[in-house]
């Protein structure tokens, strides 16, 4: 199952709910304002770094670039994908759960 999270983890509970209600080994894509969750050095970085241990965490590159976030700021283990990579994630997982 692919889980998509499009909300900032500083303002909304979407990422928390996603992590609570996804099984270990899930694919999680941070997109739109959700990409802020991929940054190191913030108050939510530890939660996301922990999630990386048990899941495959991705971040949508075009959304990062739009918001001025550099790949050097990413939490270790998070993979950057473009829209083509997003499409592959949808195709290669057996469904999509949106955490909007």
């Amino acid at each position: 199952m692919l889980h998509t999270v499009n909300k900032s983890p500083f303002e909304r509970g979407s990422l928390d709910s996603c992590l609570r209600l996804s099984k270990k080994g899930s694919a999680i894509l941070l997109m739109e304002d959700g990409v802020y969750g991929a940054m190191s050095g913030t108050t939510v970085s530890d939660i996301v770094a922990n999630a990386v241990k048990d899941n495959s965490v991705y971040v949508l590159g075009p959304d990062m670039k739009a918001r001025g976030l550099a790949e050097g700021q990413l939490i270790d283990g998070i993979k950057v994908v473009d829209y083509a990579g997003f499409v592959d994630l949808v195709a290669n997982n057996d469904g999509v759960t949106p955490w909007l």
Partner: protein
Amino acid sequence: MKFGILVNEGPFTHQASDSAYQFVKAAIEKGHEVPRVFFYYDGVYNANKLSAPQADDRNVVKRWSDLAIEKDVDLVVCVAAGLRRGIVEDNLMDGFRISGLGQLTEAAMGTDRLVMFGD
């Protein structure tokens, strides 16, 4: 593979419609099929042909319309959500059509993946 798409927010205010458009474009480029995009809730505003954004901004409504015509994507506006919000035949952009919610269920049933964009 066949993808069904659900768009739940209107143009400009939320990124959902932009994200859905970029996803659909990428999916088609990769050889997947996107038979239907269903517009629900405020998503119906994506079909408002009176939308006239500034020259230096993208034209969300026209972009969907062009995609529908060029790539043969069935753009369906929910009739009940549209009536409530005033998106009806009078102001419906080319390339969109108005129909019932059953068209969403069908898209969930008849595709390999349903991908939702919203707020």
